[in-house]
């Protein structure tokens, strides 16, 4: 509830100042150097699309005309850099995919159709640079003085950010600081793009069902990418301030340091850091622009008789000089190679001759929480398939 109140505070301030309030100072997603903005309505032969690049804007109707406009805008398999698709809604990509699926392998438009297929394949990777829903990304970067539902509309963001069009909004997002953790998601986009090009060029198979090994590896990649996005948000100074109100980040004053055990008097008792969970910390308030330089685990938590929350940490570099300082504690970040590790570790495991995926033997259960956004994306894709 208090996270919602924090959100309300942002919106009220934005309304009072008639100016967006920043939610973060760093990019909310991986960045594609080459992007094309597309707005499409209708399906199949009735498809109408506006294709917008820095050089031109064209509005065309019909499946072939749309794919041809995309090819002219540089969307095909010939580029080494994967193109990014800027959209303003959730309808455009399914509409483009519906026409891409009708193109045969011997058609001159096949490379553009395959590139659209790649967008659809990557769209549900958290933080991907392949498909960029601009209003959603703007809502992650700024709060405006309006209810959340209003922020789904691109016109709302054009008005609040004084932008002319989608590309202009994208420029506003590019002006934020880089988020180093997200570079690995871009690297995975590039890896996926090159694999897709090989697959589409050699056997024309991008429309075939995904092999179960690839599906399993891609699920692991999606989960790793969601972890990276969560870590990138907590690396952002403003993201940390917001996370105080979800309980993901805890801040407090050091009361005591004994044998590398540090006891904090925390400002709130609704933190989510549990006993034995790995954490990182730094000296200063949550919005201090530093990277955590302390690491350890949560040793325990308690509430003093006067109602003060107490959090005890085992930190390797805790010293008595820290007594009286403000310390901010957050969950341990995802590794700089989390996505790559997921792809290669699981790819290797699933690719082994004795793998349960290959042999069909019952596997030993290994469970983890699937992030909500991965589940939501799968549900949306499932709904789309049933249409």
């Amino acid at each position: 509830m208090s996270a919602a109140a924090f959100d309300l505070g942002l919106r009220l301030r934005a309304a009072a100042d008639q100016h967006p309030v920043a939610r973060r100072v760093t990019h909310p997603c991986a960045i594609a150097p080459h992007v094309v903005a597309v707005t499409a309505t209708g399906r199949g032969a009735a498809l109408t699309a506006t294709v917008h690049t820095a050089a031109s804007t064209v509005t065309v109707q019909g499946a072939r005309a749309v794919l041809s406009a995309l090819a002219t805008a540089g969307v095909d398999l010939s580029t080494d850099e994967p193109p990014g698709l800027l959209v303003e809604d959730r309808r455009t990509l399914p509409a483009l995919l519906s026409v891409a699926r009708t193109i045969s392998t011997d058609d001159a438009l096949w490379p553009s159709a395959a590139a659209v297929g790649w967008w659809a394949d990557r769209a549900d990777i958290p933080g991907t640079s392949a498909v960029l829903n601009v209003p959603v990304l703007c809502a992650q970067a700024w709060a405006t003085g309006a209810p959340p539902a209003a922020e789904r509309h691109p016109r709302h963001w054009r008005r609040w950010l004084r932008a002319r069009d989608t590309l202009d909004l994208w420029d506003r997002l590019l002006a934020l600081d880089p988020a180093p953790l997200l570079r690995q998601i871009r690297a995975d986009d590039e890896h996926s793009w090159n694999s897709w090009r090989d697959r589409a060029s050699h056997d024309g198979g991008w429309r075939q069902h995904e092999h179960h090994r690839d599906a399993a590896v891609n699920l692991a990649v999606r989960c790793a990418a969601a972890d990276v996005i969560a870590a990138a948000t907590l690396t952002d100074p403003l993201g940390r301030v917001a996370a105080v109100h979800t309980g993901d980040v805890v801040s407090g004053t050091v009361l005591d340091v004994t044998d590398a055990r540090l006891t904090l008097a925390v400002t709130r008792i609704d933190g989510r850091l549990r006993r034995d969970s790995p954490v990182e910390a730094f000296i200063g308030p949550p919005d201090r622009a530093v990277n955590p330089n302390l690491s350890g685990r949560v040793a325990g938590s308690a509430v003093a008789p006067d109602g003060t929350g107490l959090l005890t940490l085992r930190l390797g570099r805790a010293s008595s000089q820290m007594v009286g300082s403000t310390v901010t504690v957050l969950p341990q970040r995802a590794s700089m190679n989390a996505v790559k590790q997921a792809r290669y570790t699981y790819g290797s495991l699933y690719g082994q001759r004795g793998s349960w995926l290959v042999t069909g033997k019952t596997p030993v259960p290994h469970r983890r929480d699937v992030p909500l956004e991965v589940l939501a994306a799968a549900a949306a894709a499932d709904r789309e398939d049933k249409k």
Partner: protein
Amino acid sequence: MIAVTEKTLSDLTRRVLAGTGIAANDAPAVAAGAPSQAHPLLLAALQDGWRMGDRP
């Protein structure tokens, strides 16, 4: 006291509250300009959100 009490914002407050799901028993105190009657955690969050506008 934070500017959430300003009358000019009350309509927006009501609309935003409806969209953010703040519990009905806390919302009226804030929307009516009496945040001191709201839960302390809610008030702290509201003030912190408001102050984000001062940060870069």
